[in-house]
């Protein structure tokens, strides 16, 4: 009788051990409240260490760069099976879609090329996630906390071999202005000719 019971229990055990199962992907979503509160703290921390609005923007920008450098490899491994982009437009599209989607859960609205300057591209986002709950006081009119995101974009592009400067502006929501170095454009043209 005892033997029989022991047999029963062993047969009820799941066949695959937890160590045999593949790693679960886990939840990829994070509470927006937590993100907003953390970002709010980041801004407050930065604000307590600067005197002027431009300084605050630069600080946020620098913090964004730290994030940017850390995520590039991750996303290329995860999404592009470890292959880096070499073409400028492909790279920008990668930023607009993949990077944005993984960071903020949605794509950026638009990617535009400036008419008068071929070095300049615009990434337009109507409502940046970081600005969802932020109302900028009137005495800090020009401040856009999305400079943090601009920092991320700059680090991603620069570390992928497309050195550039990215700034955030209030225009059609928030517009990130991406200004590449001259040689990036020249190199891209050369590649197209081949």
């Amino acid at each position, binding site marked *: 009788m005892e033997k029989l019971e022991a047999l029963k229990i062993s047969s009820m055990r799941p066949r695959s051990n937890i160590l045999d199962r593949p790693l679960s992907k886990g939840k990829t979503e994070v509470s927006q409240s937590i993100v*907003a509160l953390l970002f*709010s703290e980041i801004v407050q921390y930065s604000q307590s260490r600067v005197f002027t609005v431009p300084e605050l923007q630069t600080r946020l920008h620098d913090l964004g760069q730290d994030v940017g450098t850390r995520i590039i490899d991750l996303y290329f491994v995860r999404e592009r099976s470890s292959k880096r982009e070499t073409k400028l437009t492909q790279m920008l599209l990668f930023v607009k879609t993949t990077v944005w989607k993984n960071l903020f859960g949605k794509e950026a609205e638009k990617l535009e090329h400036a008419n008068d300057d071929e070095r300049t591209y615009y990434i337009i986002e109507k409502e940046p996630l970081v600005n969802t*709950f*932020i*109302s900028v006081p009137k005495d*800090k009119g020009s401040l856009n*906390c999305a400079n943090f995101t601009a920092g991320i974009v700059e680090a991603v592009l620069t570390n992928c071999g497309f050195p550039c400067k990215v700034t955030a502006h209030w225009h059609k929501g928030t517009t990130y202005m991406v200004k590449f170095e001259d040689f990036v454009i020249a190199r891209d043209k050369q590649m197209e000719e081949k």
Partner: protein
Amino acid sequence: MIIYGVYIVSKSGGLIFNLDNNVPRIEHEKTFTYPLDLVLDYDSKKVSVSFNRKDGINVGHVLVAVNGMPVNGVTLDDGRDVRTTLDAPENYPINLKFSRPKMTTNEKIFLASMFYPLFAIASQLSPEPKSSGIEILEADTFTLHCFQTLTGIKFIIISETGLNGIDLLLRKVYELYSDYVLKNPFYSLEMPIRCELFDNKLQELLAQVEKTGISNIDK
């Protein structure tokens, strides 16, 4: 359904936000003959009734227009002094318009800090310990609904009488507060709320409630 105003009182009893939503204008116009049978009080900033109430004109009402011409404080729009105009017999019969004075911000702050001890007294009056204090205060023309959060912030909504579900609306306002005020890095606690997004969202919410009722607020 009409909501007259929303107030937020900080945990130390100061008014940190107020919104006048749908305040009814009470105005009364009447033509007077000489001598004027109202006793007026000539303040440095306004002309108000101090004695004799008639035809809806009450003590405390402020003179807003003379013969259709707006009054700015104690002078008429064309620069004449109100007192000399009203004292001269040749100006009669004269048409005067009175209105209930608008509450100034100072008066609102004053009233909000008066509510604070009332709330505290009410919660101490209770035979049970840890009572909530005033939640609803009813008068014949309005109802005051108060909701105190765990952190001691009071949300107050003044509405017309006989409405149900204002507590839901209060919680929704609390939600907006915790989203658009507390997650804003430029807001410091206990300070007056000056957040554009909060103002907009609150007005949107009130407009929606007035149009479609409280039961339709998305949770």
